[in-house]
């Protein structure tokens, strides 16, 4: 599958004039999106949209300008419009199940993002929303990959979005996934404590089966559910073997390390499978942790391949000068859902 265009709205300057050298700093263990203006969203619809829908739609629409009509819209989101969800929930409690306004309910449904993109693009083709928590984006990738094989002349919109809302922040905080002590994302990986910091963002891609003029090739993906780091390591090793050759070595490993010391064992196990001279980078200090953060990593890989440039702050270990042409991503969510992706220059 080939990625032809990519957009990203995140806590860093990843949208419009992209400049990811400076690192925006977290506040109260949260990295919030920098929201751009949304000229493509009519005010009549924009007024109803909660953040997740706005950001997802806002990231997608620039890819659909000038009459572009993808043959399918495939979105991954673990939670959808969570802020709308809690607004409706609070109404239920406040008004004791009396007369309630339906707008929040309609906008809270996870498939509102794919549905609104479809509405704005007058798109009657395949439309789907994958909501499988930390593998929502990866299932969207698998789906898009199958579509490209089923319809080689088609082009598809593939993407993901998740937001920080008081709702899921509180729940994940209580469940021990966000740090108790306030830290800065600048030092995320040095904090030797459990949990991470919250993030949010959206990345959208136009994909098809054609090589010419492609930004990058999403060559392979593998997902597993386990908490056993030996199994992860073995599967990772198989994936690496299957996806490297003498002529095409992996030159960059992007790791989903997130400052949670309970999850380090997975990332260390995989890093140790790789040759010692491979460059290792990390991305969650830029995006924060959230279920579909791997979409941001995918965007980052495309950006690095396309521009030939990378910000210093992503580097964990770099031992040789090389252009990054073949990038391996490993991410996990809460140590239970794992994905490996191979993205290379096409």
């Amino acid at each position, binding site marked *: 599958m080939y990625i032809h265009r990519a957009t990203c709205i995140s806590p860093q300057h990843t949208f419009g004039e992209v400049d990811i050298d400076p690192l925006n700093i977290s506040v109260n263990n949260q990295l919030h999106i920098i929201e751009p203006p949304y000229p493509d969203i009519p005010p009549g619809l924009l007024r109803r949209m909660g953040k997740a829908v706005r950001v997802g739609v806002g990231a997608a629409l620039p890819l659909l300008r000038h009459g572009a009509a993808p043959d399918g819209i495939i979105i991954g989101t673990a939670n959808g419009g969570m802020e709308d969800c809690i607004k409706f*929930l*609070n109404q239920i409690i406040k008004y004791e199940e009396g*007369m309630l306004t339906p707008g929040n309910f*309609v906008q809270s449904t996870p498939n509102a993002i*794919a*549905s609104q993109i*479809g509405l704005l693009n007058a798109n009657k083709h395949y439309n789907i929303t994958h*909501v499988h928590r930390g593998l929502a984006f990866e299932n969207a990738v698998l789906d898009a990959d199958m579509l490209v094989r089923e319809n080689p002349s088609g082009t598809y919109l593939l993407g993901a979005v998740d937001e920080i809302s008081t709702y899921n922040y509180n*729940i994940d905080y209580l469940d021990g996934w966000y740090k108790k002590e306030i830290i800065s994302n600048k030092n995320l990986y040095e904090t030797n404590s459990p949990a991470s910091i919250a993030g949010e963002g959206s990345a959208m891609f136009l994909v098809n089966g054609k090589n010419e003029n492609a930004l990058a090739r999403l060559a392979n993906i593998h997902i597993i*559910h386990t908490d056993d780091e030996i199994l992860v390591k073995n599967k990772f090793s198989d994936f690496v073997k299957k996806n490297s050759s003498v002529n095409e070595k992996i030159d960059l490993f992007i790791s989903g390390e997130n400052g949670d010391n309970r999850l380090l064992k997975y990332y260390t196990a995989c890093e140790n499978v790789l040759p010692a001279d491979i460059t290792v980078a990390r991305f969650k200090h830029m995006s924060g942790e959230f279920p579909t953060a791997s979409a941001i990593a995918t965007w980052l890989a495309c950006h690095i391949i396309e521009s030939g440039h990378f910000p210093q702050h992503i580097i964990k270990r770099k031992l040789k000068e090389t252009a990054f042409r073949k990038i391996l991503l490993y991410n996990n969510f809460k140590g239970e859902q794992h994905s490996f992706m191979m993205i290379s220059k096409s």
Partner: protein
Amino acid sequence: MSRIFVTGIGAISAIGLSVAANRASLVEGRCGIAMLGLFPSAYSGRLPCGEIRFSTEMLKEKLKVNDPGITRTSLLALHAFDEAILDSDLSDDQLCSSDTALIGATTVGGMCLTDELYQDANRKDTTGSVFLSSYDCGSVALYLQRRYKIQGIVNTINTACSSSANAIMYGARLIRHGLARRAIVGGADSLAKFTINGFNALHILSPEICAPFDKDRKGLNLGEGAAFLVLEKEEDVHNRKVYAELTGYGNANDAFHASSISEQGDGPYLAMQRALLSAQLHVDDISCINAHGTGTENNDETECRAMLRLFTKPPVFVSTKSYTGHTLGASGAIEAVYTVLQLSHQEIYPSLHFKEAIPSVSLEPARSYKTMQVNHAMSNSFGFGGNCTSLIFSKT
């Protein structure tokens, strides 16, 4: 391209705790919709719903489940999943093989625990409830994955009312692309204050028992339930029993409005057309349809228009939501199971509470049970946000 067969089915709904019990109700025209009774809500005793008359505690006992964080949605899913696995005779090794996929669907997930969710989301106390990791849609399939150590592709889909129909389609495609050898596909949803109030706020709940396709219909009744189907490749079936073949599927987006379908039923029309194309069948080949038929003013009329556009003379159709209520994320799978039963037993079920056709379309659903030749049967799910899916199953 591999032929896909249904080798196991499981279902639980307001009309039965098993596939056999569901079928008995369908054959006898026995409705499962009654005033909300078990469910703690301001609507208790006031709103007709397809409620499963088995409390969450009773379900836990029956399934011998002690997990503190388990939700009603996951319990219903487990109930149907267990039945499907047993029915298909899958071994433990096959179940946790890395080529077995599990594709679930739900719209409510653990949000059926609306009050607990409110407490946790607003951080009303410092420790939080035992349900913290059970609220999201992914929690249901993840529960099954963990319990049975499923190692293949696991996913959850939420496209509102077409969710589990899309799960069935996704599972079949995984098999066809060699990404899975077999797929257990389906969905679950339980009654929740969140959805009851949401649908009520949209004024699409009927204060009476729903009457799909009737000219005086007043809206839908919410229901709950779960269903799973085991899909396998022809090469793996050998001499085992097979219910039906999944021969076609199609999905389309209506792209009209966030909560209603376009007047001419574009999304439904395109979904059905695509399913026929994928099955390489003609409109005349379809023996019967399990319609979406929610009983709302918008859905039933637009669905009829779409059927007239495609079929000119539509085949016999039924809305089994007149028995179970609208089971939302589970409806695609529950109705797929009913469609498979129609093929397996060569029968059609009556649509309940119908008196008079909608004048603008003059279409009548089936009014009585009968045995008949059923070669190819279609099952339709047209959802909120315009997501429309059509599945075609065929006799083997």
